[in-house]
C-alpha cells in the first residue's frame, strides 16, 4: 500500500520526498503554479499554489507530502486568493498582452484565463522598465517579469553560466544580468540556454520568431492550462 493524503476528498498517492504539488500533478490533479517547474527545486515565491492544509494556508510546491494530510485545493476561497495573487502580478508589471510575442504561450496569461481574471481590481503601478535588445539573438522585456527566478535557477544549475540574478528588494526587486554594463550582450548567454526557454512569461525572447505560430493557434488557445499535461511546455 502506498501512502496517501486527501485533496478535495480524493486520495492522492505519494512517495517519500514528494511535495503536495508534485504528488497532485503526478496523479493528474491540477494545482495552479508559476514559479514551480518539474526540473527545478521548489522555491515558493509566487504563492499561486497556495492550498489549505488541515485548516492552515501553505504553498503546496514546498510542502512535503505526508500521510493523512487533508488538503483543500479547488475551493472558492483559494480560487479568490489565487485570483488576487495573479492580479497583483499583473498590476506590478506592464503586461500588455496584445503586443507580446508570448501571448497564448504565457503561463501568467493562461492562469488569468483559468481563474477568470477579467479586471485587475487593484491600482496598476506602471513601473518604468526599459527593455534590453542588445543581444543579437535574444531580447529582454523586463516589463513582463514576474520574478519567478526560473531563469536564475536554470542559468546557474543547468547552463552553468549564472547569467541572471535578482537585485533590489520589495517592490524594487528586479532581474539583472551578469555584466558590469548591465547589458545582456555582454554576458555569456546563448540562445540555446535552458534559461531562455524556461521563462513562463514574455521576458526572455528569441529574436526573429515572434509570430511564427499565429495568435489563436498557441498552447493555451487549444485548452486551458489546467487541462495541459504537465510535461508539455510552450
Amino acid at each position, binding site marked *: 500500500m502506498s501512502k496517501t493524503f486527501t485533496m478535495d476528498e480524493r486520495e492522492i498517492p505519494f512517495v517519500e520526498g514528494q511535495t503536495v504539488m508534485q504528488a497532485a500533478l503526478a496523479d493528474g490533479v491540477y494545482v495552479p503554479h508559476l514559479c514551480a517547474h518539474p526540473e527545478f527545486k521548489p522555491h515558493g515565491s509566487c*504563492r499561486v499554489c*497556495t492550498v489549505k492544509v488541515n485548516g492552515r494556508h501553505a504553498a503546496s510546491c514546498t510542502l512535503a507530502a505526508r500521510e493523512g494530510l487533508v488538503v483543500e485545493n479547488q475551493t472558492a476561497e483559494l480560487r479568490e*486568493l489565487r485570483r488576487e*495573487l495573479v492580479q497583483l502580478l499583473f498590476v*506590478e508589471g506592464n503586461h500588455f498582452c496584445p503586443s507580446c510575442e508570448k501571448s497564448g504561450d504565457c503561463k501568467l496569461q493562461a492562469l488569468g484565463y483559468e481563474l477568470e481574471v477579467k479586471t485587475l481590481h*487593484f491600482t496598476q503601478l506602471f513601473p518604468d522598465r526599459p527593455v534590453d535588445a542588445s543581444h543579437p539573438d535574444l531580447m529582454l522585456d523586463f516589463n513582463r517579469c514576474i*520574478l519567478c527566478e526560473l531563469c536564475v535557477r536554470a542559468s546557474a544549475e543547468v547552463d552553468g553560466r549564472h547569467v541572471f*540574478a535578482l537585485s533590489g528588494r*520589495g517592490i524594487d526587486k528586479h532581474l539583472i544580468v551578469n555584466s*558590469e554594463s548591465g547589458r545582456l550582450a555582454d554576458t555569456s548567454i546563448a540562445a540555446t540556454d535552458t534559461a531562455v526557454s524556461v521563462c513562463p512569461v514574455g521576458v526572455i525572447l528569441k529574436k526573429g520568431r515572434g509570430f511564427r505560430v499565429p495568435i489563436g493557434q498557441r498552447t493555451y488557445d487549444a485548452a486551458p492550462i489546467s487541462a495541459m499535461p504537465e510535461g508539455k511546455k510552450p
Partner: protein
Amino acid sequence: MQAVDVKGLLERHRHDPTRLVQMLREVQAAEGWISPTRITELAGALGLPRARVEGVAGFYAFFATTPVGAYRVLFSDNITDRMLGSVALRERLCAKLGVGPGEVRADARVSVAVTSCTGLCDQGPALLVNGHAIGRLTDARIDLIARCIEAQAPVEAWPPELFRIDDVIHRKDLILSSSLRPGEALRAAFARGADATLEELLRSGLRGRGGAGFTTGEKWRAAKLAPGPTRFVVCNADEGEPGTFKDRVLLSRYLDLVLDGMTVCGFAIGAQKGFIYLRGEYLFLQAPIEAALAARRKAHLLGRDVLGHRGFDFEVELHLGAGSYVCGEESALIESLEGKRGIPRSRPPYPVTHGYLGQPTVVNNVETLVAAALVTVNGGAWFAKHGTAKSPGTRVHSVSGDCARPGVYEFPMGLTVQELLDACGAKNAQAVQVSGPSGTLLGPAEFRRKLAFEDVATAGAFTIFGETRDLLDVSVNFAHFFAHESCGFCTPCRVGTTLLKKSIDAIAAERGTRRDVKVALRLAVLMRDTSHCALGHTACAHFLALHEKFKPTIDRRLSSLEFLPTFDLDEALAPAREVTGRDDGQAHLEDT
C-alpha cells in the same frame, strides 16, 4: 572619501564569500557608495558571479549602488521619531543645507533621506550620518550638524557629545540586576556538564525572547541531536522591530552575559563557533564588542580549551547587518551571515537542523542568551519561580512614546499593560502598540491584559500613544515601514505592502472611500494567508487592528462619496497645462 584598498580588504576577510556583506560595508564606509567597478572586482576575487554580488549590494538599504552625498544623513523614521518632531527637524536640516529630501546636493556633499527605526526611541528623534547614530535631536543639534557638514569636518572629528548614546534603565530585575562575573556561567556549565546544563535550561522553561516563544531548551536539544559534522550558535542582535532597543542596552552593559550565554550554548550543543549578528544601526557597538571579544580571548573565555576545559574550543565572530529588518527572521539572518541577500528560507527544514552553511544552528535573541547564562548559574527552578507558569522569568521592555520616563524596564512576565503604563508615567494613553508594527495594538479596554506568551506575546517593544495622537498616522507610518522592508521574495508581500501603503496614504490624505478600506482589508487577508514569512503575515496586522478597534479614526477621513478617482485628475493635467500655457476652464478637471 578615500578609495578602499581592495586587496587588503580581501585579505582581512580571508577571501571568504560569507564575509561579503562585511566587505561591502567597508567599501560603502570608505567610498560612500558601491560602484560597478568595485562589484566586478569583488566578484572576480571571490569567484562569485558578478550579478550575485550586485544582487547583495542592491538588497541592503545602507548600501548605495548609485552615488549619495559624501555626508549621507538618514533620519530614523519610526512613529516615535515623528511624535518627537523628526519631520520638522528633517525639513530644517534640508533647508539649512539647501538639499531636497531624498536628493543628493549638486556638489555631492550631502544627501538627506529616511531609514527605518534606529533603536533610539527612548532618546529620539535620531539620525544616522554615514552610519553613525545621533540621538536627542533638537533645532540646536540640527544646526550644529549642518555646520559640521558645511565645514567638511570628518564625522570622526564632530563633537563627541553628538554621538552619546544613553542606556536608560528604569527598573531592574533578574537580568539587569545580575552581578555575574565574566565566565561565571561557563564555570557553572563545566561543573554541571553539557547534558545537565541542557537539562537545567529545559527545567527553567525559558522561551525565546525574540517573539515566537519557542522553548529555548528544546531548540538547543534539537540542534545538539541533529546530525552534522559541525554546529553553530548565533546571537540575533538584529534588533529591527521599530520601538525595540533593550538589546542595545544589554549589548552595551551586559555583553559578557550575552557572550557567556553563547559560549554555554556552544558547550551544551557541541558547537565551536558563534556569531553575533549586530544590526548595522548599532555601529557604535562594534568597537566595544570587538574589544570584549579580544579581552575574552585573553582571559581564555574564548579560543582553544576555554577556561582550560580540554576539548572545548569556542570562537565568536561579529557580523554587522546593513539595513534590513527582515534579517531579524532567523533564516534570513543566516542567509545574510552567509554573505547573501537576506531572504527568509522555506521552512522546514528549520535552522536547528539546517542552519548556517546547512549545519545545525541555534539562533537566539540577545535577551534569551542572557537568561540562559543566568539559568546556568542559578538553576532552572530559580528561574521558573519568576513570571507565570507558561512564561517563566522576566521580560525586558523597551518603553517609548507618550510617557514621562521612556527607557528600559525589566519586570516578571505576566505584568499587565496598565502596570507598565503606570511604571513609566503614561497618563491618558489612548492605545499601546505591543511588540512593534508586527505586534498588537491595544486600546484601554485591553490594558488589563498580561504581557506574556499566553496572553499578549511581545518581543519587548511597548509604544504608547497619548490621547491627542491620531492613530491613523501610526498605521501610515507602519505601512511605509513594511513596504520599505519587504524583501520582495513572495508576490503577496512584495506587491501587497506597496498597494496597502497606497490605500492607507489615500485614506490619510482624505482621498479615500469605503472602497479603499475594502481593498486594504482584502490585501490584509491576502498577505496574512499567502505570504512566505512572518513579515508578510503580520505586515497588515496594524491596519486590521485599527479597523477593528479604532474604526472611527479611519471613517472620519473617508469621503462621503462611494467612489473617488484613484489619482488627482487636475494635477494629472498640470504638465500639459505647463507646455501649452493654457489655464482655461477646459484645461482643468474636478475630482467628481
